[in-house]
């Protein structure tokens, strides 16, 4: 089920005022007993959306599992900023092994829990887009095809931000990164490359695949709940703004993620057993330029030496997403 946003416009945002809601409708962050799995004191950048998303995902899962949760974390920003010895920001049993293997480590944890009959304890693996789409894809695919009882969460900030913003296979075309500089004839990341891990996940026919963004935390929370209601391999792909890597203002992280969704470049949908079951309609569609222009990583597309051809191709990508996932159904406002 997809949570459709109820616009409480008096706040000026889409955030639902929790106190106005029935208790059962309140977010996990309104829960007094919320564990704050990723607690304060970590070293994430100002405006880091990955930290926010990880806290929401794990707090929700903790609530759903009644505190019986274990987490395997890939190498990456999330690991580095949270656990520099001797301090840890995690309030959940947590292990970091390597960059590429968090899905496999989670499989191992789940296997022991199964062998010992402790299947009430659940396992989440998490990593960034590099650890998911690139170096960790084999382990992830193995976990999917065996249908191991693991929820894998990818926090996608569209590049290797931990090492200085290099290109990953989740980096969108035309993006300026440290390894796809905005120079030469086709500046930025090439068109016609990259991959959609959610669709790769769907190809494994696993019980549940969903995308979400840090702009809609209630939707993210709902998807974690749905994911945790399934057994077997599940995949959640969360778009998280990286102010450092994207070149955006720290205060705009939520706004940027929302624009990514509203312009059609990041489709928000759910799939079960390989078939799309729901997609979140775009409300107030915006042109892709509105999303791209504030980001320094796309600055070369604009201005007197702008790249209208590249912009056209990006517009085309948004159109294709909208068509493919039915993001602007008949009668919707756009």
């Amino acid at each position, binding site marked *: 089920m997809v949570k459709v946003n109820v616009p409480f416009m008096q706040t000026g945002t889409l955030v639902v005022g929790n106190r106005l809601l029935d208790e059962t409708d309140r977010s996990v962050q309104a829960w007094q007993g919320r564990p704050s799995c990723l607690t304060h004191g970590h070293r994430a950048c100002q405006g880091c959306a990955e930290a926010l998303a990880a806290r929401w995902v794990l707090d929700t899962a903790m609530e759903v599992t009644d505190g019986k949760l*274990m987490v395997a974390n890939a190498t990456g920003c999330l690991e580095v900023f949270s656990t520099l010895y001797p301090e840890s920001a995690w309030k959940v049993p*947590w*292990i970091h092994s390597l960059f590429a293997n968090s899905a496999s480590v989670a499989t*191992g944890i789940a296997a022991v829990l199964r*062998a010992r009959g402790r299947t009430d*304890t659940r396992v989440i693996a998490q990593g960034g887009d590099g650890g998911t789409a690139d170096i960790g894809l084999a*382990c992830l695919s*193995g976990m999917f095809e065996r249908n191991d009882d693991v929820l894998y969460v990818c926090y996608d900030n569209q590049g290797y931000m931990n090492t200085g913003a290099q290109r990953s296979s989740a980096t969108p075309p035309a993006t300026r990164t440290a390894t796809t500089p905005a120079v030469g004839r086709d500046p930025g990341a090439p068109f016609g490359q990259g991959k959609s891990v959610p669709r790769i996940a769907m190809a494994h026919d696993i019980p549940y695949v969903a995308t979400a963004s840090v702009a809609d935390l209630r939707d993210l929370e709902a998807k974690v709940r749905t994911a945790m209601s399934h057994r077997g391999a599940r995949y959640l792909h969360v778009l998280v703004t990286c102010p450092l890597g994207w070149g955006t203002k720290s205060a705009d992280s939520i706004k940027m993620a929302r624009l990514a969704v509203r312009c059609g470049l990041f489709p928000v949908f759910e799939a079960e057993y390989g078939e799309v079951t729901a997609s979140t309609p775009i409300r107030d569609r915006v042109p892709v330029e509105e999303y791209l222009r504030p980001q320094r990583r796309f600055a070369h597309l604009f201005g007197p030496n702008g790249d209208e051809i590249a912009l056209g191709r990006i517009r085309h990508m948004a159109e294709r997403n909208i068509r493919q996932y039915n993001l602007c159904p008949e009668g919707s406002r756009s």
Partner: protein
Amino acid sequence: MHELLEGSQAVARAVGLCHPDVVCAYPISPQTHIVEALSGMVRTGKLVNCDYINVESEFAAMSVAIGASAAGGRVYTATASQGLLYMAEAVYNASGLGLPIVMTVANRTIGAPINIWNDQSDSLSQRDSGWLQLFAIDNQEAVDLHIIAYRLAEEISIPIMVCMDGFVLTHATDVVDMPTQEQVDAFLPSFTPRESLDIDNPRSIGMMAGPDIFTETKYLSHRAMLGAIDRLEEVSGEFEAIFGRRTGRPVRVLGAANGSDSVPGRHGQIAVIAMGSVLGTLQAIQPVLRASGVDIHLIGLGAFRPFPSRALAAAIGQASRVVVFDRAIQVGIGGVLSGAVRRAMKGSPAPLHSVAAGLGGRPITEDSLAAIVRQAHAGDLSDLTFMDLRDDVIEKVS
């Protein structure tokens, strides 16, 4: 009970007697028969409360093992050759995290050129990975060492590779005294991890350690590894008390005239040092050599990590010469084992000869071994020899 078993089947049963929670493996020759047997034992219910996981790579095999071990499970995997290299990153990680995983390495060489046959290049390439490496002479030792490995690994929180020569042991059918479940239960307590993922006591495992603390972690690993030498010796003694045979000594003298396995070498003797199944063939030729006046003092290394330098130096004693049969070489330097032996022999005047033998499955014959030892006896052996080198091939190249 004495049974006739293929080495791999015997090892699989020994692992089963240790009741692992998780077995995860990716197939590679010559390890396959072991994991095939274990998957069968899980499927048929002979091994209960155990999950067998068919993983997609050796890297995943070790990663699953890491997760399972960190969650407090007793874990088993097995690999060889390219597979061990493919999992290498996770191999180092497992020891760094202090996870007592036990892994069989069915020793096989490393390509290119691709070659599926036996030498010990694979596990010896991981000599600095922080794992213990125990080497079996025969399949009886292979069986026993797995049981000893779980006991020791879990006690000291260091993972252990049990190394057995691929094909030569894994595929050989021998008489093995299979331990009983009662014996294993008396020897091997259930696994109580030093620390694990625990919902009642959440911990962060695998944190980043900066320059302020990293040296200390390495020092502690080093200290723990050194301590493992004595502990292995003790555990081997405890094993003997229950199973009635001594297996697992880091260093032992084989076929000594007085039957002792720790008598030091004497002046005039040639100390012959090796690891693994070649020791059997050396034992076979020992009486013949002795009868012809070549007195070999045969020293078998049961552990390469920890490297029992002191015990080895003591076992070499006053031997006049040392011949090391190396089953792996450091290209451009010489034998891997002989390098370690040389370091252990510091200060000894005895010349050391390294003999690269049986690389990539080249059969190690009694005649070739005897000829080498006789050459050493006559003072004609060079510092580094490639045994049975085919001069016709070399000449063509040069």
